[in-house]
């Protein structure tokens, strides 16, 4: 199989102490139904655990679900650890209860798009597919 035909590998992660995993499970199922290789971390993951899983599974994308309000700590920390692990090429995206101004602030720090409540799963899927296609062209 040619490299650009391969399945996109995505790690769906629940960082922090928040147990609200309805969204994470729904989005993980939706990505799987859309033909992605999906790995789900389970709950209560530290940023270190998430990055270790991302590296071990050699994923293209890490999608984090954060409903706890701790997004300003968790997203930058995972971005930083990914860089340290030499996995800068990995897209870090996600969703949850994240105010618009924080979404903008995080984008400025190199975090991908963050999706809020009520987003159709197709919006997230299309976004990741487009990102992947663009990356394949540029590399």
């Amino acid at each position: 199989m040619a490299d650009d035909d391969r399945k996109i590998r995505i790690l769906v992660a629940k960082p922090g102490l928040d147990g609200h995993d309805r969204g994470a499970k729904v989005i993980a199922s939706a990505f799987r139904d859309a033909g992605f290789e999906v790995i789900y971390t389970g709950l209560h993951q530290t940023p270190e655990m998430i990055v270790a899983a991302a590296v071990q599974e050699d994923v293209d994308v890490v999608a984090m679900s954060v409903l706890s309000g701790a997004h300003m700590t968790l997203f930058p920390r995972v971005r930083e650890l990914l860089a340290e692990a030499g996995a800068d090429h990995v897209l870090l995206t996600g969703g949850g209860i994240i105010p618009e101004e924080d979404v903008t602030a995080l984008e400025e720090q190199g975090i991908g798009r963050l999706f809020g409540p009520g987003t159709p799963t197709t919006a997230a899927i299309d976004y990741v597919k487009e990102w992947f296609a663009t990356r394949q062209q540029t590399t």
Partner: protein
Amino acid sequence: MSTIEKDMLGRAELEDAVRARDREIARLKARLAEWEESYDAIPKRDDLFTTVSGREIRPLYTELDRARAENGDDPLGFPGSYPFTRGPYPTMYRTRLWTMRQFAGFATAEETNARYKYLLEHGQTGLSVAFDFPTLMGFDSDHPRSLGEVGVCGVAISSLADMERLFEGIPLDRVSVSMTINGPAIILFCFYVAAAEKQGVDVGVLRGTVQNDILKEYQAQHAWVFPPEPALRCIVDMFEWCSEHTPKYNPISISGYHIREAGATAAQELAFTLRNGFEYVERGIARGLDVDAFAPRLSFFFDVHNDFFEEIAKLRAARRIWARGMKEKYGATKPDAWRLRTHCQTAGVSLTAQQPENNIVRVAYQAMAAALGGTQSLHTNSMDETLSLPTEKAVRIALRTQQILAHESGVPNTIDPLAGSYFVESLTDELERDALALFDEIDAMGGVVPGIEQGWFQREIASSAMRQQREVESGDRVVVGVNHFLEGSEQLEIETLRIDPAVERRQVAKMAEMRETRDAADVERTLAALSAACAADENVVPRILDCARAYCTLYEIRAAMERVFGAYKEPVFF
């Protein structure tokens, strides 16, 4: 027809009565068939005529759908009497309105204390504590795992010192307090009791509730600490200790709310919650406790979602199933042990980030369903909860929604006003049947704990969530402002509450100071005694109380117990 009536009638009269009833049923069936014919001839709207749970709803219900008394067992009864379908108390809202209890907590104990005083000044009648995630998981504010989460989603309480500050100036002998905490519930309960002691309050008069429902944590909400068996043991320890020392306090609130919010249908919420409740009853009985002594203090907590009639029927069915189970299966003889009392909260998951002011209306309908279903207390969600913790203004509107319902709508004037409705009675019966069928499935797996270990509950809930998501994404299930009736820019600029990152630093500094000033020998001694009690199978409440009084922290107490009990590891199902 009662036995006495039957005896009074002669055989001939009895046969006449039966024939008359058969004729009446035949007449009704003929009328119904006639109506069906005219109904079928007319085109209908292209819409889902199902509840949000996917339940098929028929276009018309008639007397033919009504529950009938069988074997002298009246399925409705009267309010305050078995099987309590019409309400747990004989006078319901004529004596006392439901308690208006808004769930609140953020930042530090001082800031939350100020919010509580604000709510009490505005007519709220009970308090309800929301803890932050570190507290919910049994971590201190200065634990590395707490980084970035201290005081963000609730109030940070790491020791008795925080609990004292939380209720500073709020007399615990006069205000009932509900605490939403599960994994480390027994520890926070002891902080609360110790805080009441510090206020000079006789703990025997404490009123309130601690959620303490660990089974639904494994199934849905996921804030656990210990594995199921030791966790259940702690809950029974609480039943035992509370029935002796705090007889007006509810040591558990068996909760469907989180099961529903995680994606369950109304019937799954009803069945899983009540089956969890019966599991606790079985554990109490197995300990040798008298069911008539501990069961009256078991309380419940249900979600009130969008489908108005299904939610009302769910609450009515819950009371009937509980009463029948407690009396017939578990042999309780006191009406107080049969009576299901519940708190309700409107459905957070039904709120939309798009056009958020519409949420005020959703909440109002849901609140009305809770009142028509006969709830004992109610939390109404704030319109901005999909965006952040609620602002003071949003909380005030949510509380005002309850006050308008209670004082302007006329809903509380009569008891169980929908009783006898062909539709509501039929839905009540249907939900009861669905719940009993799910009980059979759970029993076939060997009970609740094996069901959790096999991931059955988790999978059932996730697959219901996925079905609902598909309905919304296909547009079949209309969600105003999300997939229909859009305005272009749905994001409204509304004020949101932000937690200052300095809260975490202040809280960590306070903990360091507290650790300096307490008696280290006391801490060590009480923690060692607690570990010993855990290993020795004695009731752990008095030992945890000693730890609380010595200002041991939440995590220190958790760790002392974990040394014996171990920690819960989630089986990941996806």
